[in-house]
């Protein structure tokens, strides 16, 4: 079992009322509400949190990025990854991930990641995402080619990491006449790639086709099981048996020394007045061409105010009921997490520990209890359930490095 700490790095000093007045806390919500003095303090708080996570023996620190919104202060995951590469010694640096379609130059992204991998002495896990809809607009990237750019940039990054240069890359969206980066990853064949996601079936299928672990982001137990059903069926088709080493799960968990205090802090998971990304704007969050054509109708009706959000939007109480938010003392939390582990069998587990306006003191307490009490218990449970991480299972980094494929699939993978 690989156990991680995650925070969205909330910009908690923004004016909530201003967000309500504007009606959205995304994309066009003015950055005049961003306070760099508070920003400086908060960034340093987050570094302190990560350093404690390492000190209390947490396996991995999960990082992400978003743009033009208060719910997440990281505008470039690689910046924090670089900081942690230099400041920490043991913990894995898990990017979930770099939004590939936003890269205008994937070769430079490959270089940055290679530098992080070398500086950290091989502790990088390089996840990739499509980026949310509004991320495309915030960075001026065409949403209609999001998935094409994702797949093509992935191919270019992996080739830049693995193929001896110089070589030439002539793609549809990326053309590089000389690819020959003098920074290549320490880990061979290349750093592990994990793929997080929520609802896009195409992403689950793509991850399973690559044999990359898929990280389900705070889905309900039922949704999670459906994701694994789909992943497992694709794995079968590709000629391998998927297991816990292919499965990751991120869940909102706040741990405290009292149940009452934990409950108060857990309510902060709803601090953005709705879904975790805040007051979303339906048109900005799903620009045309960004989503799967099968979801077109549902999102269009939602955008016109004629249907509910296809992504769902549930109350705190409902999320607690569905075990999508867990809070309490270490004993309470371990009991509930055990249920999830038994039901969904992940080999990677990330606890999203602190959000919103949880104080730095309470955040540090949460991380300390996570590392010293919750994770040791979870490790024992994982052992008894035989939930192995990709590292423990020594899983291949990509399908093409598999040594256990069924013969028919082997030929296909070699192509």
């Amino acid at each position, binding site marked *: 079992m690989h156990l991680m700490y995650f925070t969205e790095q909330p910009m908690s000093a923004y004016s909530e009322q201003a967000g309500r007045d504007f009606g959205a806390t995304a994309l*066009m919500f003015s950055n005049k509400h961003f306070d760099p003095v508070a920003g400086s303090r908060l960034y340093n708080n987050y570094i302190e949190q990560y350093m404690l996570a390492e000190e209390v023996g947490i396996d991995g620190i999960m990082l992400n990025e978003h743009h033009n919104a208060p719910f997440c202060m990281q505008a470039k995951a690689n910046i924090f990854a670089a900081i942690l590469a230099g400041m920490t010694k043991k913990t894995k640096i898990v990017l979930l991930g770099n939004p590939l379609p936003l890269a205008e130059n994937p070769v430079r992204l490959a270089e940055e990641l290679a530098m992080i991998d070398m500086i950290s002495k091989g502790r990088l896990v390089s996840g990739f995402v499509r980026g949310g809809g509004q991320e495309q607009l915030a960075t001026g990237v065409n949403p*209609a*080619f999001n998935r094409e750019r994702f797949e093509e940039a992935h191919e270019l990054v992996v080739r830049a990491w693995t193929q001896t240069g110089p070589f030439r890359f002539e793609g549809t969206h990326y053309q590089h006449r000389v690819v020959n980066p003098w920074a290549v990853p320490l880990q061979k064949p290349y750093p592990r790639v994990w793929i997080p996601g929520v609802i896009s079936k195409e992403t689950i299928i793509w991850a399973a086709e690559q044999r990359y672990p898929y990280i389900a982001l705070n889905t309900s137990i039922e949704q999670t099981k459906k994701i694994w059903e789909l992943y497992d069926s694709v794995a079968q088709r590709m000629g391998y048996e998927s297991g816990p080493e292919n499965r990751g799960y991120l869940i909102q968990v706040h741990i405290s020394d009292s149940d009452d205090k934990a409950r108060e802090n857990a309510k902060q998971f709803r601090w953005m007045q709705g879904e975790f990304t805040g007051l979303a704007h339906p*048109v900005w969050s799903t*620009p*045309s*061409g960004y989503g799967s054509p099968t979801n*077109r109708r549902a999102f*269009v*009706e939602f955008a016109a105010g004629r249907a509910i959000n296809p992504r769902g939007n549930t109350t705190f109480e409902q999320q607690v009921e569905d075990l999508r938010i867990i809070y309490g003392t270490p004993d309470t939390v371990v009991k509930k997490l055990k249920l999830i582990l038994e039901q969904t069998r992940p080999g990677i587990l990330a606890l999203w520990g602190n959000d919103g306006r949880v104080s730095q003191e309470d955040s540090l307490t949460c991380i300390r209890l996570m590392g010293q009490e919750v994770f040791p218990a979870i490790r024992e449970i994982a052992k008894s359930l035989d939930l192995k991480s990709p590292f423990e299972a020594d899983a291949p980094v990509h399908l093409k490095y598999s040594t256990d494929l069924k013969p028919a699939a082997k030929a296909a993978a070699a192509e």
Partner: protein
Amino acid sequence: MAGVDWTDSTRDAAGIKLHVSRAGRGRPVVVLHHETGTLDRLPFYDELAQRYDVLVPHHPGYSRSQRPEWMRSVRDIAVLYRGLLSELGLEKAALVGLGFGGWIAAEMASMAPADLSHLVLVGAMGIKPPVGDILDLAITGYLDYARAGFHDQKAFDRVYGAEPSNDQLEMWDVCREMSFRIAWKPYMYSQTLPHLLGAVRAPALLVWGDEDKVVPQSAAKRYAAALTQARLEIVKGCGHCVDMEQPETLAKLVTDFIGRE
């Protein structure tokens, strides 16, 4: 309108099925629709078909025409339409471009300046407005965007209904996706087009609604400067979609300009 008999056909063009509606007799007039696609029939089309051989192609990737996955620019549409006119044996057509369609018409004119009788650009995109910006589809809702094309909201209701259907919303999304595919950056204009319009000697009529909230009127001045023979007509109390908001007014302007024979 009585007496207008439209024929719909599908033609093979550049690997896709292209939908073309056609009616009327006389001089060929090609009407190029907005980035919101087009309804099958509109009063403006009927008015023109009383006097001319009117062709309304549905742009590739819009309305009833298939999407060419390979297409990357608005100029590609213009080339495809040049091919269509050639296939149909139509020479010296008049081009009437509506909004986004105006951009296509201007590109077509720049490509074959001699093969053109008249050029009509109505609230045309395609040129960077010297003052103001073209309204951004990407951050505007489907209904808000479609309604922004009309100064008189009752005129919108007459065309689309007060509550457009979900099918219509979905079609707007399909059209929007195609616009992103070919006109994302720079958004809805070409940096080179203004420099290529100087060879167009055919008379040009520029029409703008004085309440156009989609393409700033300053773009008309840039077009007027780039074209050698251009005249600007402003339609009072009218938004961007002059063809749908004041069809009779626009039909009269176009007819007077092209001629009645």
